[in-house]
């Protein structure tokens, strides 16, 4: 498997002194569903925001699809897509118009953008909502539209930052059907951060655990579970909790 995302010695310190990333090294394979896990404030969103070129790094390097995102500028935006924690919708526009507009922003012709919008409306089951203003949609449908917008330009790498927050079980299931289908058919690499560990357990083969800006584990999800509970068949959530608690206890003992 070739490498799609390569991160080396990435550092980020905020002006308030928070050391968000402390020399992060990571590799994500092409076509992989990769989960970045960690407690709140561990540095997950900072890492994603650097990778998508929203904020700058202090030092280190990273490459996505063989390109340096800081130098490739707009090219990288066609290669990647982001579905972030917060909905990014224009409340005055209809779902259909937003999808078509998004396609046009990414260089699709009018017809292509309309076709792609219709396709995504079907995939995310938004047919009955497509002419409603996004501000009038229910929370779950806003979330579906938000995720559909990220997929308009058929990205090769998809960053999902807590993507299913606010979705009901049916919407979550539909969402993951679309994502896994894209992953299998089009070899799309998925970089996922989530607090729903059952989702990571079900869909991700590789993972990394970040705590206080440091990578504590990187490798296969199955290996992580075996490492924490060698003799039991545990879920990722159980293994994660055991591991994080043991790290916390070790830290407390060291402080004592």
């Amino acid at each position, binding site marked *: 498997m070739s490498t799609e995302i390569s991160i080396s010695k990435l550092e980020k310190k905020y002006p308030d002194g928070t050391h968000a990333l402390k020399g992060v090294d990571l590799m994500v394979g092409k076509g992989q569903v990769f989960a970045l896990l960690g407690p709140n404030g561990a540095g997950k969103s900072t890492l994603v925001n650097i990778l998508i070129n*929203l904020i700058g790094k202090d030092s280190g390097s990273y490459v996505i699809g063989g390109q340096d995102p800081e130098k490739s500028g707009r090219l990288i*935006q066609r290669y990647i897509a982001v579905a972030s924690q*917060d*909905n*990014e919708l224009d409340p*005055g526009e209809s779902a259909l118009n937003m999808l078509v507009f998004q396609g046009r*922003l990414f260089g699709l012709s009018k017809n292509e953008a309309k076709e792609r919008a219709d396709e995504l409306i079907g995939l995310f089951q938004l047919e009955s909502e497509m002419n409603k203003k996004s501000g009038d949609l229910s929370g779950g449908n806003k979330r579906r539209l938000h995720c559909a917008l990220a997929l308009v330009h058929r990205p090769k790498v998809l960053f999902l930052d807590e993507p299913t927050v606010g979705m009901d079980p049916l919407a979550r299931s539909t969402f993951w059907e679309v994502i896994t289908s894209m992953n299998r058919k089009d070899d799309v690499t998925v970089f996922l951060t989530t607090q729903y560990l059952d989702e990571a357990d079900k869909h991700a083969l590789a993972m990394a655990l970040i705590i206080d800006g440091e990578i504590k584990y990187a490798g296969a999800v199955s290996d992580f579970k075996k490492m924490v509970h060698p003799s039991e068949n545990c879920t990722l959530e159980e293994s994660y909790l055991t591991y994080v608690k043991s790290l916390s206890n070790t830290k407390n003992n060291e402080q004592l």
Partner: protein
Amino acid sequence: MNAANSILIRRGILKLVKQPAAPLMGFGMSLFFLLVYNAGIGGVGSMDAFGDGGYISFIFPITIISLAMGSSSGAGQALNADLQSGYFRRLFLSPVPKWVLVVAPMIADTFSSVFFTLVLLIIGAISGVSFQFGLVSVLGILLLSLLWSLTLCGFSAGIMLRTGNYKNAELVTNSIFILLFLSTTFLPRELITSKWLLAVSWGNPVTYILEANRYLLGGTSPAWYLYLALAIFGLTAIISVSYALLSARRTRIR
């Protein structure tokens, strides 16, 4: 200009058409000024200082200036709405140049300002405002209106982007509003008796755009006001747009 850039500009204009509160407020305020001032003190227009155009031609430039003031907050408002909804982040992560995200609402704002200036000029012509150079006067006034509008909406958009707070962007309009009254707004220089007001008016850039418009309308001011106004507001428009573009890089995105 590529398709993505032009659809962003078109989006800005359509937003103004769908939510015309800001430009309509500016337009309404301008008409109000014209009606009230002309009704209240229009009688002084028979004095020689007001020339053949009378008081309505003299007071008319203030309506044009206040029009742009009312509508120039539209770019800041549009950016504010996109920032608040999170949609700006989506646009920011699209493959369009970042400067277009800022310039698009400014172009929409300026377009709206120039359009409503044209409507005001038609109303002015019907109401008896004189145009010393005919069509050239109209084009000159539109050019001044464009530069003035760009100056205001550039600063408004830039402050909005840097602070992420629309209230701060309104400071531009509020501070300019004071300048409107520290000038030769209601009477020609020779009829103003207060020495401090005369002194302040020389340092007030609003004076030059007012007098430039008066040169083009009733011809009551000398031509050099026009040249100076074009130089001043050409420069402020460049500074303002540059400030807005630089602010795009420092945008606070949630």
